[in-house]
């Protein structure tokens, strides 16, 4: 109840610090979507995917193409999001099919290649027919419009000014609840158990009657569809997208969120995503003023400090919490040495 109240009033509190913080929060929620989607593939089914951002890109471009002057199509968002999710799922199957026999490092390399292929396609599909508008990206994307409410503009309701990002915040919050519920239900189902079984022992899973081909493709498709939804919302919020947003480092970042929080545990993954989304922004707003106050001038760029801390965090994690900040109880045991079976 308290959490709900806090979440409901959050954007107004943040607005006091600047609308930018509401935007940052919205992006953080998008990263939660992405992390939860990747968690299905990596955390549940145990398939290492380094090209996940491709599905984010697919979702974003689906939205951009179906709701912008670029192709002159303007569909409402509640039609586009499912299309984006479905297309991303199809791409997930496309990626999954040739990689069914691969595991671990080999799978990681192929998925990484896949991510790059999608990005390069987005970059070059401006000729011979201009589909993606190449590196310039697609601009003037329609904001979400729902029942006459335009999410791209400010409105005054009951004497309260509600700006665009705040409206998106509430929409994202609703989507987030849906995403979490879907995730939890999937984990705790016949399908979720089959994913876990494949992660634990693929041979035994096959022998016990699990069609591993189908179940793995399902994991890829389900994970990808979350990425598609996140991409669609990203395009709507930014109103501009270009291939630059869908680079390899994004995939790595999302994977880092999943691993940092604790693979397989929904709440851990959410915590990881929020932490890695907010921490750099916090730094951006504190590093410069602090240095100015202490040294009177800027000695170290915020970007440098960010990478420094990120590296330090990775090392400390490996040393002290290899299973993540908030691991799945099973994963925790997997990593602890004292508790080896037999």
């Amino acid at each position, binding site marked *: 109840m308290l959490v709900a109240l806090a979440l409901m009033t959050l954007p107004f509190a943040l607005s006091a610090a600047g609308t930018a913080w509401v935007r940052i929060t919205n992006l953080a929620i998008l990263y939660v979507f992405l992390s939860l989607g990747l968690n299905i593939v990596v955390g549940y089914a145990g398939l290492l995917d380094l090209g996940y951002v491709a599905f984010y890109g697919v979702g974003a471009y689906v939205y951009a193409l179906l709701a912008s002057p670029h192709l002159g199509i303007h569909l409402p968002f509640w039609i586009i999001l499912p299309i984006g999710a479905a297309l991303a799922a199809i791409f997930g199957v496309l990626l999954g099919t040739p990689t069914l026999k691969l595991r671990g490092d080999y799978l990681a390399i192929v998925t990484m290649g896949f991510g790059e292929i999608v990005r390069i396609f987005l970059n070059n599909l401006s000729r011979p027919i201009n589909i993606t508008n190449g590196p310039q990206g697609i601009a003037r994307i329609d904001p979400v419009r729902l029942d006459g409410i335009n999410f791209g503009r400010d409105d005054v309701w009951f004497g309260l000014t509600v700006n665009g990002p705040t409206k998106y915040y509430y929409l994202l919050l609703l989507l987030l609840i849906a995403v979490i519920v879907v995730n939890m239900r999937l984990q705790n189902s*016949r399908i979720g*158990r089959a994913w876990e079984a494949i992660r*634990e022992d693929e041979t035994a899973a096959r022998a016990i009657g699990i069609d591993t081909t189908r179940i793995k493709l399902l994991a890829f498709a389900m994970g990808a569809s979350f990425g598609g939804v996140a991409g669609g919302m990203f395009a709507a919020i930014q109103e501009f997208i270009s291939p630059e947003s869908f680079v390899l480092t994004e995939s790595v970042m999302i994977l880092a969120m999943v691993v940092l929080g604790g693979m397989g545990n929904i709440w851990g993954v959410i915590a990881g995503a929020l932490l890695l989304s907010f921490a750099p922004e916090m730094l951006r707003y504190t590093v410069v003023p602090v240095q100015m106050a202490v040294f009177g001038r800027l000695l170290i760029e915020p970007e440098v400090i960010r990478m420094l801390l990120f590296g330090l965090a990775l090392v400390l994690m490996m040393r002290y919490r290899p299973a993540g900040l908030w691991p799945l109880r099973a994963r925790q045991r997997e990593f602890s040495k004292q508790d080896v079976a*037999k």
Partner: protein
Amino acid sequence: MSAILLEAHAVAKRFGGIRALHDVSLTIRQGEIYGLIGPNGAGKTTFFNVLTGLYSATTGSFTFAGAPLKISAPHQVARAGIARTFQNIRLFANMTALENVMVGRHVRTRAGVLGAVLRDAGTRAEEAAIERRALEMLHYVGIADRANDLARNLPYGDQRRLEIARALATDPKLLALDEPAAGMNATETAALRTLVAGLRADGLTVLLIEHDVKLVMGLCDRVAVLDYGEKIAEDVPEKVQRDPKVIEAYLGV
């Protein structure tokens, strides 16, 4: 004589130049415990792996329950009604005992993604049935009190039992046990023997690979002996035991 459940027709398996199985034919009757024995490397586990679809046979075929057994993928074999355990226990170590057995119900249930997300009445009922049945199986093998323990934390003997429970959860017509007594002490072996005999009493057909000759001779209705990938004997235990070819294979004379 009871009906024939499984028939192997001249099954052969080669790995490059190595002849792991050479034209092995055998018949397993409904409701019997059929032992498959032989010295190390005789091809017993290879036969299991071919039967359950982990390897594809070089030549030969199987007839199961009156129909040709299509072995294109292991999960289809499980669906047809053959469940197995492994020589080196292969449990889902980081899942609970109950969850392990629930996974065994996968092949007999239907809920998909939509059912999982919507959690409609049908899916909830199926889920409850899966759990009920899994608990029954744990009771049957006698480890229901460990239902919520992680599989990896169970004692060795219980892990063997759990693997059998998981296999039983697939509603098999034929249960194939690959050296279930391996690594067990005398007490555990005796308990296992009671369990397997109980399976036969409940009408299940069992194919048993075993090293423990005493266990095989006391438990099996019929026994086949493999040596260098060939079947050298097949009969009731008392006769197989006195077969000069079998004695030679085991003593290496």
